[in-house]
Each structure stands twice: as C-alpha cells, then as structure tokens.
C-alpha cells in the first residue's frame, strides 16, 4: 500500500469502532435501539447506548476514510508496470470506484453524527423540533431543529453506501465468472464505464429514501428521475455478466456456484427496487416488508453470496489449501434455497401492506391476517439458513490444516495475484515485482499453449 502506517491506523480505528459498538450492549439502558438509520428525534432522546453507537460510528467512518485514501492513492500510483487503467481486473475498478464513494459520501454522516452527539450531550436542537412531547412532557430544549436535516445527511451517505456494498461484490463475481468460463468478460469496457457512471449518479439519488417526507412534486420528480437513470448502469453490468456465461467452458466449482447464484438473486433485488424508486408506487410500499425483501435480495443472496464466492475463491491464495468442494456445495445449495424461503414471502407481505419494524410481525392489524402465516415460513427458512452455514464454518477452519494442498495458481487464473504471487504470499507479496503485458482475461487464446495466458507472463 502507498501508506502502510495509514493502513494500520485504518485497521485499528475499525477495531476500536467494533469494540465500541459491542461495549454498547453493556451500558445502562442497553445498546442503540433506534435502527441503523438512527433517526432523530428518537435517536436523540434514546438511552446511553445511542451515544456509544455514535462514537462507534465516528471510529468506523474514520477507518473507512483512511482506507479509501490509501486504496485510491495505491491504485493510481503503485500499480504494476504496464498495468494501465483499462487493463485492470474488473474487481480493481470496482474497489477503486467504491473508494471514491467512501471518501466523499462518508464525511457528511460524520458531521451529522457529531451534531447528533451535540444534541444528546450538549443539549442542542439541531434535529429536535420545537414543542416535542416525550412521555407526556414538552421538551425544554431550544427547539427549532429539523429532523429531516438528519435524514438528508444520513441518506447522503447511506445511498452511496449501498453501492459500496454491491460494487465489490460485482467485482468478485466478475473475476470468478471470467476464470470459470475460461473466456474474457463480455463488454468489459461498458462495464467499466457503467461503474464510473453508477458511482457518480449514486450521489444524487438519496432522497428516494425520503419520498414520504413532503418534499414537493418537483424535487420528488428530480430524485425519481435520477433513481431511474441509475438503474441503467446496474442492468448493463448484470447483463454483461450473464452474457459472459454464453459459450463458456463452465467449471461449476463452489466459487462459481455462488457467483452464478448471485446473478438471478441480484436481478430480483434490483428489479424490485424499481417500484420503490418511483415515488407514486413507493407510497404504498414505503416502510413495508416489500422494502425488506428488496434490499435483502440485493445484500443477502446478492453481496453475501459474492463474499462467499470470494472466500472460496481466494482461500487457496491466502492459505495454500482449498476448501472442501463437497461441503461447499452443500453450503451453496442450502443457502440458495433458504435465502429465497426467507425473503420471497416478504414481498407478498409488503404488497399486502404489512409495515416493517412491528414487534408482532403485523399480528395486530386486520389487513395483515391473510398474510401473517408467511412470517412462519420466513422463520423456518431463517433457522434452516443458519444451519446451512455450519458446514461453511466447519469447512473454513478445518481446511486450514486438512484442506487439499493447492498449487500457487490454484484456479489457473490470468490475474496477477494468482500468476505471480505464491500461495500463501510472502512478505511483500511477490518475489519479483510483476509487470503487465496484456489484458486481465486472456483465456482460451487461439494458438496459446494453455487455455489461459497470465497477465504478467512475459
């Protein structure tokens, strides 16, 4: 990395943030209870745990900011000789754009967290409106604050944040698909331009999380429009990944199973986001189970599947051994089915109007009665999903000692980390500094000796 000490600072800041968050469970009043969105005024009047949460966020945001600076500087300045931007593996592009999202979107939340701390600790009223009644008493704060200010500052980060969650995942899936189809990615250039466009647009869509706050039709139309536009690059990337499968010599190993599983799941997640991004259809769907289903589809069988894929894929690089294929396939099959059992019914519940964040899952509402049984289906699915993670956890640790030994380039991959670094890598990663001579996905090149030509092979 360009800044090794900054890297370390970033890690320890993250560690401190994590510890702080965990400590919050043990303070009087318990941990933060105002949702990940920490909306004012609830979060302002909540118990001590919320203050601890806010401090935790400051540490975590700082960690991300320092990391982002490091990733961007390193990618630009320290890439291997011959590694031009358009020769980057798609994963590198994904991380690069993600770093910019973190760099520019997180600070407003840091400012907002600071202001919420001021509200909680110094008695200010940044987010407290006048005349707020709490437990029958009118608050004596100065008032005049704006709860919507919190929402704007929060969502300014939180929307780019969801792209922070999905972009690296898309990067991982792209690498694994290219490797296991033994052919280059289809539409690499379009995918890269889409990434950049997506990153840019992600900064100007945030108020689609606030359609119900009375912003007026002009601004609602603005945010609806930018939201519809941002779906285009997403679709381009997903389509390119799917087309990349066509005509491939597909190897269905565990990483590839998860990578392929990602595709339809992210498709469902993305498509179900459309009625949420259109302000009229959002009216009946906002804050219902439909929203929960939508974002879980993109993050759970979406991002998390990509992360599983990445773990199975890069495990041999990090440890020199492969994880068990059998256990991996059980993990995949069980997880894929159960994810759908858990989250598909939530679309039905949401369309029926069941709100999210109800302590009784909707049991208190007459209109929810016909769909209540889906709660039970989801719950069974959740327990089963949990059980199917056990083979993965066992596999992860068991394989460290007993896994099948892997060669340095365990997957016969073209990218530099596979072709030039030992598995596991020594200090400094490479014995000799690698140089790039070609693109990242030279698979099945006619006339070549093997079905892949590494990027760094002279």
């Amino acid at each position, binding site marked *: 990395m360009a800044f090794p000490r900054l890297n370390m600072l970033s890690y320890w800041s993250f560690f401190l943030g994590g510890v702080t968050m965990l400590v919050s469970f043990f303070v009087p009043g318990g941990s933060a209870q105002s949702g990940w969105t920490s909306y004012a005024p609830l979060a302002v009047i909540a118990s001590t745990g919320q203050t601890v949460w806010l401090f935790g966020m400051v540490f975590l945001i700082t960690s991300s900011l320092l990391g982002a600076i490091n990733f961007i*500087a390193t990618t630009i300045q320290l890439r291997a000789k011959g590694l031009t931007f358009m020769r980057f593996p798609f994963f590198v592009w994904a991380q690069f754009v993600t770093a910019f999202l973190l*760099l520019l979107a997180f600070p407003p939340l840091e400012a907002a967290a600071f202001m919420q701390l001021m509200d909680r600790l110094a008695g200010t009223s940044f987010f407290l409106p006048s005349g707020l009644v709490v437990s029958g008493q009118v608050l004596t704060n100065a008032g005049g604050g704006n709860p919507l200010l919190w929402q704007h500052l929060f969502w300014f980060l939180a929307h780019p944040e969801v792209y922070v969650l999905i972009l690296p995942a898309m990067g991982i899936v792209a690498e694994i698909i290219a490797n296991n189809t033994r052919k280059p990615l289809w539409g690499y250039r379009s995918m890269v331009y889409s990434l950049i466009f997506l990153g840019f647009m992600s900064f100007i869509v945030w108020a689609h999380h606030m359609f119900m706050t009375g912003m007026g039709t002009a601004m609602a139309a603005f945010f609806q429009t930018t939201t519809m536009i941002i779906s285009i690059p997403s679709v381009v990337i997903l389509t390119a990944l799917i087309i990349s499968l066509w005509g491939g010599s597909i190897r269905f190993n565990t990483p590839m199973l998860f990578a392929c599983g990602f595709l339809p799941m992210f498709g469902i997640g993305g498509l179900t986001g459309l009625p949420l991004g259109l302000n009229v259809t959002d009216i009946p769907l906002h804050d219902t189970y439909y929203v929960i289903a939508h974002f879980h589809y993109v993050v759970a069988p979406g991002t998390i599947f990509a992360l599983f894929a990445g773990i199975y894929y890069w495990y041999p690089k990090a440890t020199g051994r492969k994880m068990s294929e059998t256990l991996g396939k059980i993990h995949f099959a069980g997880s894929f089915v159960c994810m759908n059992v858990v989250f598909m019914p939530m679309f039905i519940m949401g369309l029926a109007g069941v709100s999210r964040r109800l302590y009784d899952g909707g049991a208190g509402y007459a209109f929810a009665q016909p769909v209540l049984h889906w709660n039970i289906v989801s719950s069974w699915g959740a327990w089963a999903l949990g059980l199917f993670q056990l083979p993965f956890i066992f596999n992860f640790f068991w394989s460290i000692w007993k896994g099948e030994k892997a060669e340095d380039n365990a997957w016969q991959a073209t990218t530099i980390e596979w072709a030039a670094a030992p598995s596991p890598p020594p200090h400094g990663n490479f014995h000799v500094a690698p140089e790039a001579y070609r693109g990242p996905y030279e698979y099945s090149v006619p006339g070549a000796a093997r079905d892949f030509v590494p990027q760094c092979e002279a």
Partner: protein
Amino acid sequence: MEIPYTVEIRRDTGLTNGKIGIWLFLASEVMLFGALFASYILIRTGAPVWPRGDTILNVPLATFNTIVLISSSVTMVMAWASLKRNRFGTFRMYMGATILLGATFLVVKYFEYSHKFELGLFPSTSNFLALYFTLTGLHMLHVIGGMAVNAYFWGPGAKLWKTNPEWFTNRVEHSGLFWHFVDLVWIFLFPTLYLL
C-alpha cells in the same frame, strides 16, 4: 522493498503518493464542512427569526482572528519556500511563527467562548449558538490538529531534513496544504457566522 514515488513523482500522473494522499483527504474535508454549511442553510431558512451575527458575536475580535489565520497561512507557505531555498533556519522561523499565530487564534477563541459562557450563552441556548459553537468548535479541532503536525515538523520531525531533505520539504508542503485548508474554511465561516 522501498515504496516508489514517495519523493520522486510518477511520470504519468506527475504526482507523489503524498500529494495525492493529502488532496484526497482535503476532498473528504470539503464534504465534511459542506455538510455543516448545508445544515446551517437548512436550519436558518427554517427558522422564523434569525439574529444577525454581530448582535451576538464579537466581530472585531473575529476580524483580528481572521487576520491572524491568514497571516499564519503566509508564514506557512514561506516556511515551505524556505526549505525549497535550502534555508533551514528560515524554515524554523516561519514554521515557528505559524505555530505561534495558530496558538494566538486558539487563545482568542478561548476568550470568545468563555465570555459567551459567562453571559449564560451555551450551545443549548439557541440554534444560532448551537451552529456557532459546533462549526467553530470543529474548525478549532482542525486548527489544533494542524498545529500538532506543524509542531512535529518544527521539532522532532525536522531530523528528516538531514537524511532526506526532499522528502521533508514535501511533507512540510502537504502539512501546509492542510493548514491552508483550515484557513480557507475560516474564510467562509467568518462571514457566515459573524457578518450575516
């Protein structure tokens, strides 16, 4: 393995790692203070009445502070220029002046704040004061941070001049960029809070 482009520039970007690093950091700081200014706009436009800055705050004192901070920006860039001219002694003098001017800024702020507290004016008193204390408070934290880094380069960090003067000069330049940014924020904060 030495990390390349720490001192010499990479030809295609024309930059050192540190130069990119500090500008990326400053970009994030622009967004941080941007959020605070956005908050100011939203809260002020949403308020039925809003006091004019000079009815509550001490404009002459803040004007003095503005001059102090701008002067410290000049001494900072002169400190770097002295290193480029190979005059370490002069660098020491200008950097020392920068730190002293920063300290002056802080002392004035101390008097400003304590006077407010004496009058019973706290962040919780009104949104005007909440914004005033929060914005100048966060700015002040940045002044302190900048001063700490400058003090390091004036003191223990100056050892680097003997072994790698180019790297030292670059690091002073980067530290200067942060300091100028702190000055730049004040250039906008001062009229916003005190004059409008």
